[in-house]
């Protein structure tokens, strides 16, 4: 079974510098990490491989230093890694990114199962996976919270669609976007770091893609124009409660916020 996991390098914390004039995130060297949601995707792939065997490839798009997240994926157990990198991709929005990734997936072979995280912590759109599947013409299920079964030709999953919990059997090739906490992601291993130090990360550039029309990529291929970018404002409020029945009141608040469920 061939699994491909889409991963992305994001800023280490939400406490990042940002040039509000140019809209550019000030990325410091060494101040990045793998998108936390992608850790769940990679862990899902590793668990599936433990059961069904096969190979795991990871694919990321970004500047040359994004190789670091591929190496991190190696430290968690990925077998192959690809870095889609070309100046032509700079400034890509969701559509251009998804198109570039779908082209790269076609280049390396889409395998049986493509797994991505729910969203990224920097872009937060939760659209790249879905759009990739659209460009590839393969089925896609999002909000996957549980892998129920792995069969030779299909995967059965449980998906939390907000109002409903859906069970679905989806045949390969397909794409799933997994939820946070589907599994507890393992930590990167020092032994694997040493063992994969010489394992190459294959770079893919525009001239290797089937569609080399530059108007489909980067800024020119991006219908979205960013007018302004700024860190989200942090709001926190405090309430002080006094009086009686505070326990009940607290319970009601937690229940209404769907943090607790009432046993009926």
């Amino acid at each position: 079974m061939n699994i491909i996991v889409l991963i992305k390098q994001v800023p280490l914390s939400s406490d990042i510098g940002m040039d509000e004039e140019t809209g550019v995130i000030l990325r410091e060297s060494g101040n990045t990490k793998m998108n936390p949601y992608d850790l769940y995707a990679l862990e899902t792939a590793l668990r599936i491989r433990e059961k069904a065997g096969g190979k795991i490839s990871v694919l990321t798009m970004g500047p040359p230093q994004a190789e670091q997240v591929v190496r991190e994926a190696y430290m968690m157990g990925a077998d192959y890694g690809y870095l889609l990198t070309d100046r032509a991709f700079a400034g890509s929005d969701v559509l251009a990114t998804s198109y570039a990734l779908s082209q790269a997936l076609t280049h390396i072979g889409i395998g049986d199962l493509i797994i991505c995280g729910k969203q990224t912590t920097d872009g937060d759109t939760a659209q790249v996976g879905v759009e990739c599947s659209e460009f590839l013409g393969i089925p896609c299920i999002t909000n996957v919270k549980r892998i129920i079964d792995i069969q030779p030709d299909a995967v059965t999953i449980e998906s939390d669609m907000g109002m409903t919990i859906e069970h679905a059997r989806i045949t390969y090739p397909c794409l799933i976007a997994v939820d946070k906490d589907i599994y507890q992601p393992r930590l990167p291993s020092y032994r694997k770091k040493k063992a994969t130090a010489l394992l190459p990360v294959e770079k893919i550039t525009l001239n290797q893609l089937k569609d080399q029309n530059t108007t489909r990529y980067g800024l020119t291929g991006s219908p979205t124009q960013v007018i302004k970018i700024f860190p989200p404002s942090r709001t926190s409020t405090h309430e002080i409660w006094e009086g009686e029945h505070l326990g009940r009141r607290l319970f009601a608040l937690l229940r209404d916020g769907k943090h607790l469920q009432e046993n009926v």
Partner: protein
Amino acid sequence: MNPVTYKKIGAEDIENLNRIIPDRTRIHVGDAIHPDYQHDELHALTGVPEILIEPISANETAAVVKYAASNNIPITPRGQGTGLVGGAVCLHGGIMLSLQKMNRILELDEDNVILTVEPGVLLMEITEYLEHKMLFYPPDPGEKSATIGGNISTNAGGMRAVKYGVTRDFVRALEVVLPDGEIVTLGGKVAKNSSGYSLKDLIIGSEGTLGIVTKAFLRLLPLPGVVTSMLIPFPDLDSAIATVPKIMKARQIPTAVEFMQKEVITAAAEYLGRQFPDSSSSAYLLVSYDGPTREFVDLALDEAAEIALANGAIDAFYSDTPERQDAVWKTRGTFLEAIKASTTEMDECDVVVPRSEIAAFIKFCHGLQEQYGVRIMSFGHAGDGNLHIYALRDNLGDDDWLSKLHNVFEAMYQRAKQVGGKVSGEHGIGYAKKNFLEESEVPEISRLFSQIKKAFDPRNIMNPGKVAG
């Protein structure tokens, strides 16, 4: 000290104390005192205060102490009541003096890098206050909702003690109300001090038996830019602990070296309702480094990993992002609560032994589990030899529990003494460990303890019945 008969608080005393504290919301008598004030986190020991007073200044504190001294009324100072040895429990009634309302951060002196606080400020409030100023107060006891006054009273330690030391190492000066009601400042905003006996250091760790801290001047350090940990699985506890001295001899000093065993991790993960990132092994070391840059810290981590692998570690895992640190350290931070939740009652042995003795000591303690039929769980600071070993009551009956607990603790403290250990690494003596302290020290030292207590508090009104009083 000789037993003292204290004066019971009467209507006249209440009237007089009300004159000192005219705000009726800060003075409570009899049944109006919440039952929480009858115990600390060691629930087995209880005592009822006759009056609870919440001063808001050193002058108020001094006036109350002066009144108590001249009327032979005992005083028990108290912070958040998160202690584990009964230190903040009134054994002889009298006045409970809660410092919780003296909770202002008074000054950040950036030139001397000293933070001045009142004793009721919580540890977590200090962390929060300093975080965005790129400074930090290194002592890091697990109980973040404890007051700084309580931390000073017990000379609290915590996980970062390996690299930075304990509370005593970060207190430059203290304002103290002495048992006769006089206010003095011990130490100063100075980096060195060889001026006579260090009374400040006697007050630290004295658990409210020598005076009441009303202001603390804390030494701060620059906030390290990067803190990263490594979770290192070993096939057994012996090989994990045997690796610690080798890691300590590496080029960089770790910030923390914790040991943990599968059974405690499982209990904590269940308590939190979440999974731990690794469950492949029965024993782990959790090693942290801090430093100015990622590269600097990575070098230290890789060196520690090499040492660990050369000494039998199964692997070494990076915990290098906020999410990973949360998954690992949140579990570690829940050990005490999880163990508590797994049983009906428990008591803790907080011994500190030489690092070289940790593995043998833990093995000895777990042997007691079989020998006495009491469930025992442990975790602790492998980097500084401070262990937390818990005897768990489960379904034992009253007499059975008390006698087994006594025997088990007796055996543990005797063993600790044999290997050059001390009764308490960071929780203090309070009431619960008083006998063990006395047994562990030679008579000359016990006598010095008593004489020091007498020199400060000849009437024995300050937290009587605790430590050496």
